[in-house]
């Protein structure tokens, strides 16, 4: 779906990503893990086409820039963090913006908005102004817009890609799991997703693969069960960590331990 090779990105002569490579294929939910400032957001923005870079980014085997913009928008959606909207739209209007790349009647658009709002548990918020919602609720609105943009959970000949930057950061536990299980189902229908996320255990429960970013490089990547090891994580976070199997699910769980303030 999306493949990047020898990707380097820098701002003001300051290297943020240094010759990194990786990919997300159909059926893969890739967790992008790393410390604050490890370059997770920069990688997502670059894969979305926002930053200039050296190396290559291929989306469906063609360079990113060679795709027609409107068509690309139906195959690839991006949800960024800190999505502040200066103008006070309603929830309905904001989700409906995801339908911009499609030619459809307002009635059809309205049905789609209701469908994706319901998935994100927003049916009762549609006429509310976004500014009146909490941070977590706003995050769900942007996720519903992302789903609407990709026409998620419908038959499609071509695979679609989601790039999500910390989509669960403001959500309560129930909505964290609701969002990630939604993404997982989307991926299992032949699509793929790359998610930057800090919660290692959530990543472990839902992701198929992981990319560990450390010191501007990829520390390790592969199936998430093999990547989430004590050795890798202790090197990445420079702290004591333990990895134990989940009691009910087949997933490694990461435990930190109490530290003394120096």
């Amino acid at each position, binding site marked *: 779906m999306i493949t990047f090779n020898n990707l380097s990105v820098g701002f003001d002569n300051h290297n943020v990503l240094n010759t990194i490579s990786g990919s997300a294929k159909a059926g893969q939910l890739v967790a992008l893990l790393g410390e604050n400032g490890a370059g997770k957001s920069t990688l997502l923005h670059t894969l979305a086409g926002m930053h200039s870079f050296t190396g290559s980014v291929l989306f469906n085997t063609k360079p990113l820039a060679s795709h027609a913009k409107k068509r690309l928008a139906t195959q690839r959606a991006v949800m960024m963090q800190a999505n502040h909207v*200066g103008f*006070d739209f309603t929830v309905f209007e904001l989700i409906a*913006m995801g339908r911009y790349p499609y030619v459809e009647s307002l009635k059809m658009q309205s049905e789609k908005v*209701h469908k994706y709002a*319901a998935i994100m548990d927003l049916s009762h918020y549609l006429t509310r102004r976004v500014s009146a919602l909490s941070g977590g609720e706003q995050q769900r609105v942007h996720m519903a817009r992302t789903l609407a943009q990709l026409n998620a959970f419908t038959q499609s000949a071509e695979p679609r890609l989601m790039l999500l930057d910390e989509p669960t950061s403001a959500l309560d536990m129930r909505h964290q799991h609701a969002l990630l299980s939604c993404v997982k189902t989307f991926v299992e229908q032949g699509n793929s997703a790359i998610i930057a996320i800090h919660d290692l255990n959530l990543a472990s429960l839902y992701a198929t693969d992981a990319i560990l970013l450390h010191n501007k490089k990829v520390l390790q990547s592969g199936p998430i069960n093999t990547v989430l090891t004590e050795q890798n994580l202790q090197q990445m976070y420079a702290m004591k960590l333990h990895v134990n199997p989940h009691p009910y699910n087949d997933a490694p769980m990461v435990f930190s331990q109490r530290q003394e303030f120096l």
Partner: protein
Amino acid sequence: MNTLTLSRFTPITLSQTHKWMLLASVCIFALALLSIGYGPAGWDWRLAIAWLAPEYFNQFDALQINVVMQIRLPRFVLAVLVGLILAQTGAATQALCRNPLADPSIIGISAGAAMVAVAFIALSAQFNFNAQLYLPYASFLGALGVTSLVYFIAKQQGQINITTLILVGVAINALAFAIIGLLSFFADDSALRLINYWTMGSLGGASWSTIIQAAPLLLISLIGLWRLKEPMNLLLIGESQAQYLGVDTNKLKLYVIILVALGVGAVVALTGLIGFVGLVVPHIARLMVGPHLRNMLPLCMLIGVVVLLLSDWLARIVIMPAELPIGIITALLGAPLFIYLIVKNKRGWS
């Protein structure tokens, strides 16, 4: 979720928008009677319709009908066009800058257009050419230059800085007025009167010939911006977001800059500087139906017409039988609101 009950739901803003638009249309109709029926040549609301079929209105003489057709009607048509354009270019500038405080008169676009227009008039006396003929096109170039300049100065690392935007506007306004003042020393008497009228704004110079001259610019701006309202709406949630949704934002911004300059340039050439309409009117429309341009833009344009007709009528009656420049009325209404918006948005500045 039960989709059957959900599909009966329709977004509330749609009917709300239609209600407000109906109200604005009623106001426009009433103001049309007032503006066409009222004047020094006689005040009778029936004058507003008499010109359509003079044979049924024996109480009016041919001179009165002629005054309506050659003076009041073009003035009314001009007010409608200027109202539509100023409201729409204001909303478009705010989308371009993603900030509700941006307005062509505040960030210097109108002053830039007026400066070039005045230079054109002053030079026409020196070089003996017909300034009136090319005036809309000259002031379009002035508006285009200033819009591009302001936009690129205020843009830092892909973000529009509103503080810089307004400061650049202050500087350009000051510079433009200084140059207009300077040029007025080189102008002859008739040009001087024209220049005076430029800096305050007036619909008094309306005639069919000037309207027809500027019509291509006005119509291109009106239709062009109208057709861009869906992608412009996405700009409101951020440039990168709009790009991810499939908008070619570089192309869009270029089109918006050119179309705003076309509209503002032509309006300034016709009426001079009428400030704050592009700030006040979109603000009122947003309060009524929210920021979505599909609802907001048509209502905003109708309110623009209401504000222009009302201000022009006030300008005509306040110091009867003389006329006040309309720019004074709109500034008196708009400037306090601008200050209020700055105070309200102070914390939102970045």
